[in-house]
């Protein structure tokens, strides 16, 4: 029993597990919207875009969260604006803006003489290095995003399914789209701490994609997605400790494994379905 609980004897591991729990639940819940609205690319895009803000914050000695939040929110609003006003498809708008913002971050960093070890951790995750302040940020932002999703629950579902009829009925589909992009951006900032820029997209997509294999109802899909997300982050963190491996990579590999298990279950069921 002692050896099972061994990782929990360290403060930094306790903090890491709290962050893993919140990030897993939050990302995979938001992932339900990402998968149903076919926004997989946006998770990757916004995570990369945050790098511009992280770089500026780092070089000016400003707060990491403020920099990442500003860059991600500005980019998500610009993506929405370019898409709505510029006759540019959403994936193209994301592609243009996220590469631009990421390049801006790299450009600024490359001109700085301050070589960076810290910034590596933003690219590849630093869940073992989170401070008590980081834990508070993750929990606080997580609760805020949950509140917004709760308040916009029905408009989000209606506009995800049938935005045109929802709009005719008086639901402000444009506002709901912007609100979703902003809370998605906040979710990504939270997730950056845990698994890093490169692996955020996986947590926003894979658990929800796995859940979609097993259910045809929205609420069960979101709950299953959360379950898979938390299992991946907490289980992955634990496994990475035992295997002496990268925590971010282990988390994503576990999520990927879960996806293929659900795919196999779904494929095995299919011949018996009425479809």
């Amino acid at each position: 029993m002692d050896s099972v609980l061994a990782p929990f004897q360290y403060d930094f591991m306790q903090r890491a597990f709290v962050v893993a729990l919140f990030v897993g639940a939050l990302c995979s819940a938001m992932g339900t919207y990402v998968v149903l609205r076919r926004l997989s690319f946006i998770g990757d895009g916004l995570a990369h875009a945050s790098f511009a803000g992280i770089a500026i914050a780092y070089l000016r000695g400003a707060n990491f969260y403020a920099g990442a939040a500003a860059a991600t929110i500005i980019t998500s609003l610009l993506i929405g604006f370019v898409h709505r006003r510029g006759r540019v498809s959403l994936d193209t708008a994301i592609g243009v803006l996220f590469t631009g913002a990421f390049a801006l971050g790299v450009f600024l960093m490359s001109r700085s003489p301050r070589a960076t070890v810290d910034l590596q951790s933003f690219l590849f995750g630093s869940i073992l290095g989170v401070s008590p302040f980081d834990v508070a940020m993750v929990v606080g932002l997580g609760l805020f995003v949950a509140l917004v999703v709760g308040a916009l629950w029905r408009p989000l579902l209606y506009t995800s399914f049938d935005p045109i009829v929802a709009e005719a009925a008086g639901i402000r589909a444009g506002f709901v789209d912007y609100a979703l992009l902003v809370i998605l951006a906040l979710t990504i900032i939270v997730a950056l701490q845990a698994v890093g820029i490169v692996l955020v997209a996986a947590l926003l997509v894979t658990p929800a994609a796995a859940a979609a294999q097993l259910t045809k109802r929205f609420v069960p899909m979101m709950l299953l997605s959360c379950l898979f997300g938390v299992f991946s982050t907490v289980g992955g963190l634990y496994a990475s400790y035992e295997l002496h491996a990268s925590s971010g990579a282990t988390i994503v590999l576990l999520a990927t494994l879960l996806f293929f298990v659900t795919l196999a279950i779904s494929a095995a069921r299919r011949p018996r379905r009425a479809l």
Partner: protein
Amino acid sequence: MTTTAAPAQNQTYAVEVHDLHVRYDRVEALQGVDFALPRGTALGIVGPNGSGKSTLLKTVAGLVQPSQGTVRVQGRPPRELPAGTIGYVPQIEDVDWQFPVTVRDVVGMGRYPRLAPFRPFSAHDRRAVARALDALDLGSLADRHISELSGGQQQRTFVARAIAQEPLLLLLDEPTTGVDATTEDALLRLVRGLVADGLPVLMTTHDLDRANEWFDRLIVVDRKILADGVPDDVLQSGAYAAIREHTHVHGHHRADQHTH
């Protein structure tokens, strides 16, 4: 039509469209459409493919902005109406049929516009959904996933959602195209019942054989209104037949590309 638009008189019309022009890029889909629809009236809109019928409905729904002219629903621009006022059933539902919702979930969405955040469904909301399911004979299909429905059942689901909304104006874009006779009869009875209760209905159709059963008034549209009156008079005037002939001979190439 008199030009003295007294405020009190405005209230008597559910929909007022004045000098409506709508432009998509270089194509002017509507070129000066005028009509007014009183409450408790079913107005049919007929015209060839690409004549602007669907555009007219979308503009009344507030989904398309006029390039010129005005649209008033209950005396106000459509975008400024209280949520839940307009029930709209598009011609082709371009939804993801794998989306994780059942028939009951979709019909329940009709209640969403009127519900405050965090507020659970009231007894009235549940009754409205149950009545809409009943009215379209969907009771036994309520817990089916939407991918497991026939075309007619899908169409009835979307009409039921609009009915569950308890709208003050119902817009139906070719609801009878491609559905079975049973569904068509059910829709006809439903629409006539709602109109008898005072609901204004605006509906496009290709089916002229039963126009006098469906509608109190019929307009023929080909970017402009070519005829307007009770269905039998309009059909006997030959305005629609002339358009059909015109379409057949010359074709509406740009317009046809729009619809396919």
